[in-house]
C-alpha cells in the first residue's frame, strides 16, 4: 500500500511538471492583436479556458491512475 502511495505522489509530481510544460509552450507565446485595447482580455480569457481544460484532463488522468494503483484497496 505504502509503495502505491509513494508511486501516486511521484505520478502527481510528473503530471505537474508535464502540465506546466504544456502551459508554458501552449499558453506562454499566445497573443491576440486584432481587437484593440481588449486584446489582452480576450487572450487571458482563452488562456483561462485552456488552463481549465488542462486541469480537467489532469484530474481525469489522476482518477484513472488512482483506480489503477489502488484497485485492490478501493474495493471498500
Amino acid at each position, binding site marked *: *500500500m505504502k509503495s502505491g*502511495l*509513494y508511486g501516486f*505522489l*511521484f505520478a*502527481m509530481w510528473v503530471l505537474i511538471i508535464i502540465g506546466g510544460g504544456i502551459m508554458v509552450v501552449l*499558453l*506562454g507565446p499566445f497573443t491576440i492583436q486584432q481587437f484593440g485595447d481588449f486584446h489582452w482580455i480576450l487572450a487571458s480569457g482563452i488562456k483561462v479556458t485552456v488552463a481549465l481544460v488542462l486541469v480537467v484532463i489532469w484530474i481525469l488522468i489522476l482518477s484513472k491512475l488512482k483506480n489503477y494503483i*489502488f484497485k485492490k484497496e478501493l474495493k*471498500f
Partner: protein
Amino acid sequence: MIELIIPAIISCIIAFFVVYFSTPPLIKFLVKKNYTVKDMNKKENVMVARPGGISLILGIIVSEIILYGFFQLNEILAVIITTTAAFLIGYVDDRKVMGGWFKPVALAIAALPIIFLGAYDTDLAFPLFGDVQIPLLYLGLIIFMIPITGNTINSIDVLNGVASGFMVIASFTLSICLFILQNYEIAIVSLPLGFVSLAFYKYHKIPSKIFPGDSGALTFGAMYGVIAIIGGVEIIAAIALLPAVINSFLFLSSVKRVVEHRQIKGKPVEHTDDFKLKATNDKTAPVTLVRLILAAGPLTEKQVGFAIFKLAIFSGILAIITAFMMGVSL
C-alpha cells in the same frame, strides 16, 4: 547579508516562544471554560482543549509585525491580514456549525488583500520550461489558492499532531526552496510559520493536550498559501503539500461534492478491540489518505501519523528537486 540574518533570527525566536509559552495558559483557560472536545481515537473518555488557533495567530502576528519593522514590505501586510482573516473564519466555524460553502467563500474573500496590496507577480513559474504570464488567470488563482490550502490542511487535521507536524515539514521545505531560489526576504517571512508549527507540535503531538481547531488549521493553510503567492512558488508549494492534496482529492472524488466532514454518514475508519485504527468496508464512507494507509491492516494512531510524515518528507524532497529544476531551462 547581516541585515537579513538579524531579523530572521529575532522573528523565528519570537514566533517559537510566543506559541511555546502562550499555549499552556490557553489550554488551562479553554479547559476552565469547558471549551473541550472528545478525542475520538482514545479508549478512555479524554477531553482535549480547542481551539489552539489563538496561540498560533498570536505567534504569527507578533513575529510578522517585527519583520515589518525591518522590511516594510506589502507582502508582510498581506500575510498578516489574510492569515488573521482566515483565523477569524475558522474561529467562527469552531464556535458555530457553518454550512459546507461558508469556509471556501469566506476564505476567497480573505484572499482579496493580496490583490489590493499588489503583493503578487502575474508570472507563474514552472520547472524546466520557464514562466508563463497569465494576468487575468492569476487573479483567479489567488482567489482559489487560499481556500484550497486552508481546507487542504483542515482536511488532514484528523489525528493527534498530524496537522502541525505536517506543517513543520511543508513550511520548512517551502522556506528552503525560497532560499534556493534566492528569494531571501520572502524566505525569512515564511520562517515563522515553521517555528509556530514546531512550538505548537509540542502540545499537539500524541497524546494531544490541545487541538488547533478550524481556526488553527485555516491559519496554517492560509499563511502557507499567501507565502506561495508572494514568493512566486505556487507550483513548489503545491508539490510540498501533495499528501494533503491527495487526501482532499480522494475525499472529493469519492464523495463527488463539496461537503463538511461532519455531514458524511459513513465512517472511513473504525477501532479494533485494542483501539488500533482500521479501515472499514463501508461503501458509503469517503476514501481518505488515512483509510488508504490502513488498507494493509490496523495501525496505531502514532504509526499512521508517522506514515503521513514520511509521505510529507518524500513530497518535500520532490519540492526541493523542483526548486533546483527552476534554474534549469530546456
